[in-house]
């Protein structure tokens, strides 16, 4: 196996060190390490992080290969510094059987760019009525540990309770898309000042908060763990904070776009800003940033949601919800969290690698940058400044809200078990 010497990188933003990769593992970490035949990556001024882990990605395959495939999605992941992604279950057919999750898992293996861990649906067909074969999906080759009806809320309290109880048998977790359906009928954007002016159906914060409140209480009642997808409101933060203080086993994620963008952008009626949950207010954005910094929100997850051009180049009401995020996530986090002083690079590693891997039980990922560990690594140039150009994306879709916007930072190298999937900014 080949050797790679990463020379002079700031490991987790700390002291500059050399890291020698030998085969699939980190062989040595130190200073002044000899090249000794290894390929040398000069990394002075760069940050070395454990490979990023995304607990919330939509790869669209099977069924919507016009938006994304496992191959194109994992290439995008590698470009963004990810070495593992969890693929959401709302595919066609829905990933609610062992067969479908094994198919996605196999496609991930074949892609070679990133480990793909399928997420299984909580209910058959995401219909919220009958539990899917959670155990069979866990026992399959895919070894599913995370279950979610993402895109839809498990709104039936009894079904949610049963799912939370059932997955305890094999250490699974239910990831809830918190959206009370009746309160969001016809909703198209955050309910508030802007929606009132634009005449777009309002999506009240309480529709998210009421489900989170219910679910943390359910998790407490049955003694299970629950994960809350894409928190978007200040109120949701308060509920999760209260639940944690009470000892409830809850974890939560926030997307990069909810750390940066607000509903004021919807004034353009540009569907690139149409997303679920919707962009909220400046107050919500600030609360989410603080919560991510203080650990109330555990992780950053992209909710990478690719859509073809025609699904966004239309009037707001007809447009699909979602935005791509794998290739811009780290830049947005650097911009909103690191450059604001809210989080250091060790904190970024914690929220984007260690903790998501722990929540999803992603073996081999989210490990320390230490000798003997799997060489899943990401190298970042934090000094880079440049406008986002969707034409350079590896994702099959281009629905990014950041086109032309200057964001800091660039992932230059990604290593998956010692093999470069991204080398000098180019996919290997």
């Amino acid at each position: 196996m080949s050797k790679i010497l990463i020379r002079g990188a700031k490991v987790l933003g700390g002291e500059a060190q050399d890291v020698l990769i030998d085969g699939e593992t980190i062989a040595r970490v130190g200073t002044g390490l000899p090249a000794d035949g290894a390929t040398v990556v000069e990394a002075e001024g760069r940050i070395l992080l454990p490979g990023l882990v995304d607990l919330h990605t939509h790869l669209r395959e099977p069924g919507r290969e016009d938006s994304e495939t496992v191959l194109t999605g994992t290439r995008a992941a590698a470009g963004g510094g990810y070495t593992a992604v969890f693929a959401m279950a709302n595919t066609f057919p829905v990933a609610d059987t062992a067969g479908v999750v094994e198919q996605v898992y196999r496609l991930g293996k074949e892609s070679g760019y990133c480990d793909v861990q399928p997420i299984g649906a909580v209910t058959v067909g995401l219909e919220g009525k009958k539990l899917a074969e959670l155990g069979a999906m866990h026992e399959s080759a895919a070894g599913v540990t995370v279950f979610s009806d993402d895109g839809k809320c498990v709104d039936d309290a009894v079904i949610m309770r049963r799912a939370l109880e059932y997955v305890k048998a094999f250490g699974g977790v239910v990831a809830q898309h918190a959206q009370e359906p009746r309160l969001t009928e016809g909703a198209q954007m955050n309910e508030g000042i802007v929606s009132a002016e634009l005449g777009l159906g309002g999506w009240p914060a309480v529709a998210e908060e009421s489900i989170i409140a219910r679910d943390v209480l359910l998790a407490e009642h049955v003694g299970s763990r629950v994960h809350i997808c894409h928190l978007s409101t200040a109120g949701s933060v308060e509920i999760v904070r209260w639940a944690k203080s009470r000892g409830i086993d809850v974890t939560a994620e926030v997307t990069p776009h909810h750390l940066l963008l607000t509903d004021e952008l919807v004034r353009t009626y540009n569907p690139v800003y149409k997303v679920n949950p919707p962009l909220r207010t400046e107050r919500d954005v600030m609360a989410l940033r603080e919560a991510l910094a203080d650990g109330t929100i555990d992780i950053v997850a992209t909710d990478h949601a690719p859509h073809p051009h025609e699904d966004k180049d239309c009037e707001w009401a007809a447009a699909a919800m979602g935005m791509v995020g794998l290739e811009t996530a780290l830049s947005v986090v650097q911009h909103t969290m690191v450059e604001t002083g809210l989080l250091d690079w060790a904190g970024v590693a914690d929220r984007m690698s260690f903790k998501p891997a722990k929540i999803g039980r992603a073996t081999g990922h989210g490990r320390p940058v230490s000798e003997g560990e799997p060489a899943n690594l990401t190298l970042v140039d934090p000094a880079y400044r440049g406008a986002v150009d969707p034409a350079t994306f590896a994702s099959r879709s281009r629905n990014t809200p950041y086109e032309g916007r200057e964001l800091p930072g660039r992932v230059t190298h990604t290593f998956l078990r010692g093999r470069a999937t991204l080398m000098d900014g180019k996919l290997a």
Partner: protein
Amino acid sequence: MMRHLISAADLTRDDAVLILDTAEEMARVADRPIKKLPTLRGRTICNLFFEDSTRTRISFEAAEKRLSADVINFAAKGSSVSKGESLKDTAQTLEAMGVDAVVIRHGASGAPYRLANSGWIDAPVINAGDGTHQHPTQALLDAFTMRRRLIGRDAGLGQDLAGKRVTIVGDVLHSRVARSNVDLLHTLGAEVTLVAPPTLVPVGVGTWPCEVSYDLDSTLPKSDAVMMLRVQRERMNAAFFPTEREYSRRYGLDADRMAKMPEHAIVMHPGPMVRGMEITAEVADSDRCTVVEQVANGVSIRMAVLYLLLGGNEPAVTNPSSRTEEK
């Protein structure tokens, strides 16, 4: 004058007064034996209606024909839209056919804005009502009607609505008419009060330039104009109010309530009216109710808007000096 008319909020006071004054000129055409001007001869205007509408479409069509424009009427039902064609493709087809302006009615809020700002089409876009967002020509015709009734046809020329008190009653939440009127009436200096049950008042209304009340009876004596909004019966299924009868009792306008209004005050309605629910037949048929005038004024306003947006920079009918004299 702006290039498109998407929202009443986009109009300055001077823009709005210019449109109202121009509409007065246009209204004189309606008094002639031959109700036609050559102003837009050779220009093609497409009425692009994605949502059912009778009175607005006919009003625009009448305005266009009185200005001698060539008119294309496009209804989404039975068209390529029902076969899945997108708004973008439809717009580009019209562009290729060389239309000079597009009047669009769409069920989705923001569709006219997208049409005007996405580079799909170059022609001026006039919003004829989009979702629950805006209906700017409706607001203009309402303001025109108020100015005529409350100030006077000639005395109103060059004037705004400063100090006039307007009450808008009913389903504000789902009303593009209410949104447009709040914006325009504020620009014109009027004081607006919205009256509705709390379930039909939008969250975020606190930033609007108006007052909000849940009590119609206390508002009526302070009103120069009371605008009743149509209440859609299907709203009852969504529990916005308990029963039609209760709504009517609390927010309907009947003769007893009308008697609480100042004598000069008028009753307005954008139509179509649901008689017996938001307004009684007695009120609807009274001399103080301006519904029929609003329809007539709609044609004059739309003539003025089309004329001004399509490049009219000369007085449409009279000359500037005569307009000044009328002040």
